[in-house]
C-alpha cells in the first residue's frame, strides 16, 4: 500500500515509524517561522520582563514627587522621558505602570477563558434544553455593549484594580462561552465523538479525550484576541477613574492625570497611550498569527 507522505521519518529503536508531528507541534513550528509573530513576541517579552523586574532595574522611585520638576522634557537631569505633572520620573512610571496595566488586562481574559470555556463546553456537549438555558442566560449579558457593561459594573462597584478585574471578567465570559459552545457543538456532531460514545465510554472520558483536544484550539485563539481588547478597556476604565486609583502607576490612569497638561507638555501626555497601543497591537498581531498557524487541515 502506498504511503501518503513523501518522506517517512527514521524509525525508532523498536523499529516503529517515529510519531509524526502532532497538531500543537505543527502550530508551534509555523509560529516560530512567522517574522511578525516573532517580532511581536520579542517586544512583548521585553515589556513583560521590564514590568516583572521593575524593582531591580535601578529606576527612580515612581512615587517620588517633586514640585519643582513638573512636566520637564526628555533628558532633563537624567529623566530620560521627562517627568509627569507631579514631578515623578516618566520612564519609571511607565515601567511600573506596565505591571498594573498588563495585570489588569491579562487576568480577566484568563479567568473568562476558564469560566466561559467551561460553561460553553458543557452547554455545547449537553445540547438540548441545558444548552438553551445556559446560553440564554449568557445572551442576556452578551446583549450589552462591552464598554458599557464594563463601565456600568465598575461604576457601581467603585474604583479599584480588583473591581476592574471583576468587571472585565464578567464582560468577557459571555463572549468566550459563545465561541466555546459553538465549537463544541460542531465537534460533538462529528462521527468520531459518536464512535467514542459507542464504545460505552463515560461522558467525562469522551469530553476529556476527544472533545477537549479539538475544542481548545479555537477557544485559545479567540481568547488570545481578547487580550488586546482587554488591555485597552482596562486602561480605559482607569482613564475614566474607575480602575486603578492614584497614586499608583497605570497607563490609563496616567493618561487621565496628564490630560490636563496636554497644552503644556503634549508629548509627555500621550506617552502612556503609546505603551497601551504597542502592547495591544503586539497581542493582536500574535493572535492573528496563532489563528493562521492553526488554520490548516492538519
Amino acid at each position, binding site marked *: 500500500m502506498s504511503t501518503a507522505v513523501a518522506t517517512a521519518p527514521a524509525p525508532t529503536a523498536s523499529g516503529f515509524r517515529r510519531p509524526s508531528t502532532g497538531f500543537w507541534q505543527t502550530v508551534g513550528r509555523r509560529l516560530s517561522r512567522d517574522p511578525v509573530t516573532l517580532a511581536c513576541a520579542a517586544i512583548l517579552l521585553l515589556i513583560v520582563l521590564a514590568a516583572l523586574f521593575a524593582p531591580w532595574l535601578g529606576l527612580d522611585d515612581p512615587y517620588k514627587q517633586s514640585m519643582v520638576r513638573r512636566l520637564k522634557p526628555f533628558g532633563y537631569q537624567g529623566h530620560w522621558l521627562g517627568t509627569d505633572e507631579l514631578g515623578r520620573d516618566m520612564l519609571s512610571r511607565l515601567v511600573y505602570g506596565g505591571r498594573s496595566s498588563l495585570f489588569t488586562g491579562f487576568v480577566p481574559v484568563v479567568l473568562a477563558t476558564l469560566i466561559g470555556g467551561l460553561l460553553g463546553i458543557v452547554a455545547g456537549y449537553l445540547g438540548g434544553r441545558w444548552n438553551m438555558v445556559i446560553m440564554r442566560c449568557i445572551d442576556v449579558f452578551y446583549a450589552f455593549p462591552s464598554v458599557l457593561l464594563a463601565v456600568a459594573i465598575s461604576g457601581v462597584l467603585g474604583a479599584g484594580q480588583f473591581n476592574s478585574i471583576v468587571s472585565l471578567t464578567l464582560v468577557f465570559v459571555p463572549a468566550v462561552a459563545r465561541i466555546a459552545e459553538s465549537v463544541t457543538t460542531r465537534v460533538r456532531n462529528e462521527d468520531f465523538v459518536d464512535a*467514542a460514545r459507542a464504545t460505552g465510554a463515560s461522558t467525562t472520558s469522551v469530553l476529556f479525550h476527544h472533545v477537549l483536544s479539538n475544542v481548545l484550539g479555537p477557544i485559545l485563539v479567540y481568547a488570545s484576541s481578547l487580550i488586546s481588547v482587554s488591555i485597552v478597556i482596562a486602561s480605559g476604565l482607569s482613564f475614566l477613574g474607575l480602575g486603578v486609583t492614584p497614586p499608583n502607576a497605570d497607563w490609563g490612569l496616567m493618561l487621565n492625570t496628564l490630560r490636563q497638561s496636554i497644552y503644556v507638555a503634549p508629548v509627555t501626555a500621550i506617552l502612556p497611550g503609546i505603551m497601551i497601543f504597542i502592547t495591544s497591537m503586539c497581542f493582536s498581531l500574535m493572535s492573528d498569527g496563532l489563528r493562521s498557524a492553526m488554520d490548516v487541515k492538519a
Partner: protein
Amino acid sequence: MIYTRPAAFTPRSAAAPQAEPGDFRVDLQERDRGGPAQPMLIVSGLKKHFDIGGRSIGGQRTVVRAVDGVDFTVRKGETLGIVGESGCGKSTTARLLMHLIQPDAGSIIFDGDEVNAVRGMSISELRRNMQMVFQDSYASLNPRLTIRESVAYGPRVTGLSAAQARARSESLLEMVGLEPSNFANRYPHELSGGQRQRVNIARALAMAPRVLILDESVSALDKSVEAQVLNLLRRLKAELGLTYIFISHDLNVVHYISDRVLVMYLGQVVESGPVDAIYAAPRHPYTRALLSSRPSMDPRRRIETAPLSGDPPNPINPPSGCRFRTRCPQARPQCGQEPPALAPAPGSDSHVVACHFPLSSSATVPSPPAKGALQ
C-alpha cells in the same frame, strides 16, 4: 486478538495459532447464549420521529418521520444488506440499533435479551456486542490522536491496561492489513481514504463485537479501493465469525456482500428476503424499479420497465396508505386507503413484501453484472 471459530459452523483448523504476547482468546461459543437457531437481532416496531420545530399556523409541530415502524431479523453469521434511496432512514436505523439516538418506540432483542429493558441487556452491554463503522472515514477519526491511540481507546474504556490496549491495537491493525510499525504512529490526515476505513474497521473490532454495522462504509471510496475493503470485510467475517449489517445505496455492492437484503422506503421496510431471490425476482414495485434502473454494460439488455419518476415525497408528510403509491406504476385506489403490512410473498416464507399487489415471481429484471466483475 483471535476469535476461535465455533465448532458448530466450520471445523477448527488443525494448527491452531499459539497465543502471542498481547493476544487473548475469546471463545465465540461461550458468548453465544441463544444457540444457532436464535436470531442475533430481532427488531420490531422501531420508530424515530425528529421534531424540527417551526409550528405551523395550526399549532402542529413539524415532525420528520425518519423511521416509522421497522421490523426485521438478523440471523447469526449472516450479512444483512439494507438498501434504499437517500433519506429512507437507513442511517437513522443504524444509529437507533447502536442506541446513539433514543428510539421513540419499538424493541431490539439481541441474542434473546431485550435491550434497555428491565431484565434484559443494558446499553453498555449492547455496545460490547455491536459496533459500527461510519461512512466518512476522516470524520470518524479524532484528528488529534494517532491511529494506535484511536484504536486503543475502546479497549481502554473496557478496562484493559495501557500496554494491553496498545498490543491489541497493533494486532488489529495488522489484521486489517496496516503494518503497525509503519502506520501505528501516523495521524489520520496522513492516510488515504481506504486506509482510514481499515482503521475504522480495526477500531470497531477492538471492542470484540459479534455484530458489525457498516453504514455506507465503502461509499466514499474509489472503486478499486472499495473492492479491497469489501474483500477484507469478507475475510474478517469468515475468520472471526461475525455478523454484518451492511447499509448502502449501491445495489451492486450489496449484492456482492449480502446473504439477505432489506429494502427501505421512506422510513419503512417494503421488502426483505434472500439476496438472490430479491435481485432476480423482486416482488415490490419499488425494488423492481430500483434494480432495473441500474445501468447495464450490455447494450443488448436495455431497460424496458418504467423508471422511477420524481423525488421521494417529503418525510414530514408522507402519502396516506402505501407511501410508494405516488410513484408506483401499478397504484390502485386501495393503495391510498390502507398501508400494506409485511407479509410473506406467495411461494416463499423467507421472502416478505409490503404491498397490496405484490409482483409475481415471474417478473424478472435484467440480470445484474456478474459477481466476479466487481474485482
